[in-house]
C-alpha cells in the first residue's frame, strides 16, 4: 500500500467517493418513502373512525365520511376487473403460446406502449366513446377506463408468467397426443396460475390509485351508488376534491381517506411480494 502513486490514490479515492454516493442516493429514496408513509399515517389516523368509514360526505363543519367513496371504488374495481382481467389474460396467452412472427411482435409492442399512455388520455377517450353517447357520467364509463389501463399490465405479466413454464411440460403433453388448446388450457395455464393471479392483483392495486381517468368518466357523487349508469364516488377523486378545497376539516378527511387508500394499495403489494418471494 505504501508504494501507491498519487494517481492511484486518486483513483481509489474517486472510487470510494462515487460508491458512497450511490449508497446515499438509495438511502435518500428509501428515506423519502418512509417520510411519505409515516406522514400519511400520522395525519390520517386522527380522523379515522367507524363513522368516517361508513358515512357519506357532508358540508363543512358537520363531519361526514367516505363510506360511499369506498363502496364506489370497490364497485369500479369490480367492473374493471370483470372486463380487464379476462381480456388481459387472453392477450398474454396469445403472446406467449399462440402468436409468433411479426404480428405478435407488433401486438407486444402495442401492449407495451399502451402501458405508458397517460391515464388522463384514457379518460378523454372513454369520455368520447361512452360518456358522450350515454349523455351522462357513469360507473360503467369509469370501470371501462380503469379496465383499459389494466389490460396491458395484466397481458404482459401473464405472458411473462407463462414463459416461465418449462418447455418440457408443453412437449410432454404434445407427445401424449394432446392438441395445442388442451396443452395451453390443461397444462401451461394451471402451472402458471398463481403467477397470473399475482399479476392480476398488482394490476388491481395499480388502478385502485388512479384518479385522472375517473374525473370525467365516473365523475363523483355525494351519495351511496344506486345504479351503474349514474355518476359514482371514488376514494381517489374524493381525496383530490378535498385536498384542493380551502377547508382544514376536509384536508384532515383527505389524509384519512389517503390512509385507507394506501392501506389497500400497499397491502396488495406486500401480499404479492410475500406470495412470490420464493419464486424469483
Amino acid at each position: 500500500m505504501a508504494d501507491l502513486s498519487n494517481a492511484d490514490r486518486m483513483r481509489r479515492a474517486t472510487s470510494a467517493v462515487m460508491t458512497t454516493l450511490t449508497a446515499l442516493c438509495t438511502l435518500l429514496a428509501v428515506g423519502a418513502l418512509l417520510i411519505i408513509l409515516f406522514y400519511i399515517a400520522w395525519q390520517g389516523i386522527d380522523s379515522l373512525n367507524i363513522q368516517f368509514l361508513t358515512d357519506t360526505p357532508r358540508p363543512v363543519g358537520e363531519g361526514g365520511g367516505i363510506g360511499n367513496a369506498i363502496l364506489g371504488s370497490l364497485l369500479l374495481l369490480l367492473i374493471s376487473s370483470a372486463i380487464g382481467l379476462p381480456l388481459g389474460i387472453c392477450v398474454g396467452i396469445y403472446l406467449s403460446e399462440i402468436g409468433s412472427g411479426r404480428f405478435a411482435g407488433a401486438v407486444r409492442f402495442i401492449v407495451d406502449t399502451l402501458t405508458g399512455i397517460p391515464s388522463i388520455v384514457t379518460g378523454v377517450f372513454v369520455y368520447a366513446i361512452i360518456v358522450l353517447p350515454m349523455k351522462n357520467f357513469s360507473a360503467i364509463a369509469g370501470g371501462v377506463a380503469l379496465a383499459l389501463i389494466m389490460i396491458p399490465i395484466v397481458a404482459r405479466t401473464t405472458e411473462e408468467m407463462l414463459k416461465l413454464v418449462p418447455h418440457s411440460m408443453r412437449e410432454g403433453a404434445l407427445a401424449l397426443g394432446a392438441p395445442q388448446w388442451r396443452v395451453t388450457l390443461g397444462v401451461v395455464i394451471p402451472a402458471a396460475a398463481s403467477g397470473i393471479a399475482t399479476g392480476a392483483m398488482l394490476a388491481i392495486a395499480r388502478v385502485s390509485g388512479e384518479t385522472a381517468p375517473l374525473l370525467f368518466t365516473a365523475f363523483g357523487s355525494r351519495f351511496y351508488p344506486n345504479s351503474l349508469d349514474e355518476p359514482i364516488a371514488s376514494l381517489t377523486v374524493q381525496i383530490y376534491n378535498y385536498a384542493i378545497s380551502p377547508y382544514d376539516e376536509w384536508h384532515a378527511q383527505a389524509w384519512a381517506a389517503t390512509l385507507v387508500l394506501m392501506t389497500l394499495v400497499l397491502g396488495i403489494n406486500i401480499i404479492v411480494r410475500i406470495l412470490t418471494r420464493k419464486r424469483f
Partner: protein
Amino acid sequence: MLVVALLMVGIVVAMVVALAIDSMLSIRQFGFGFLTGQRWDPIKGEFGALPFVYGTVASSAIALLISVPFSLGIAIFLVEQAPHYLSRPIGFLIELLAAIPSVVYGLWGIFVLAPFLRQYVEPPLAKWFGWLPFFRGTITGIGLLTGGIILAIMVTPIISAVVRDVLTAVPGSQREAALALGATKWEMIRVVLVNGAPGIAGAIILGLGRALGETMAVTMVIGNRPEISLSLFDPSYTIASAIANEFTEATGDLYLSALVELGLILFLVTFIVNGIARVLVWNVTRKTGGVGRAA
C-alpha cells in the same frame, strides 16, 4: 385469442380516431397555430397550447435533471454493490415508491413539499442564484419547481427499475475483465454503464414518457396558470393538468374540442416516446438477457 390480440390493435386505432374526430373542430379552426398560440382564453374563444407545451416540457426536464443521477445511483448500488440480503428488500421499498398513487403524491406535495420549499429551499435559491432568470419572482412554494420535484420523486423508481434490469443484463465477464486489468470498483462500474448505455437511454426516455403524462400530482402543485415564464418559482400549467382541470367545466364545443386536441397531442407524443424507449430497452435486455451477473 387472435380476436383479443386484434382488439388491442383496435383499441389503439380507436383511440387515435376518436380523439381526432372530437378535436376536428379545433384542428380546423386553428391548424398548426394551436401549438404556437400563446393565449389560452376560453372566454374569448382563443386557444393556443404553447403555455401548456412549455409547462409540460419544462416540468419534465426538471424532473429528469434531478431524477436521472439519483436513479443511476440507486440502480448501481443495488446491482453492483449491495449484498443480496440488502438489494432485494431495498429494491422492493423503492418499487413501493412507484406504487404510491399520483393523487397521494399531490396531497403530500401541497401540504408538505410546497411549504418546505417555500421556507427552506426557494429563499436561498433566490438569494444566491437570483441573478439567473430561473430563480426570480414571488416565492409561493407552488409552481414549476415544485411540480418538477414531485415528478422527479415519481419517475425515479421507474427509471431505476429499468436501469437495474439493464445493468443486470450486462455480462459478468465485462466486470471480471475490468477488475482483472486492475480497475477500481468505480472504473469497473463505468465499463458496465458504457455497456448498458443504450438501455439506460431507453430507461430515461421511459421516465420522460411518464413525466410528460403525469397528471394529478402535478396539477395539485404546479399552480395551473397558462403563462410562459422563465422563473421556476412561477405557476405554470401542463397539458395533462389542463385537461384534468378544465374538461368538466368546458362550455361550448370549441373549448371541449381544444381540450380533446390536447389529449390527442399528449397521446401521440407519449406513444412515440414510449415506442423509442421500448426499442432501446428491448435491444439491450434481449441480446444479453439470461447471461448471469457477476457474483
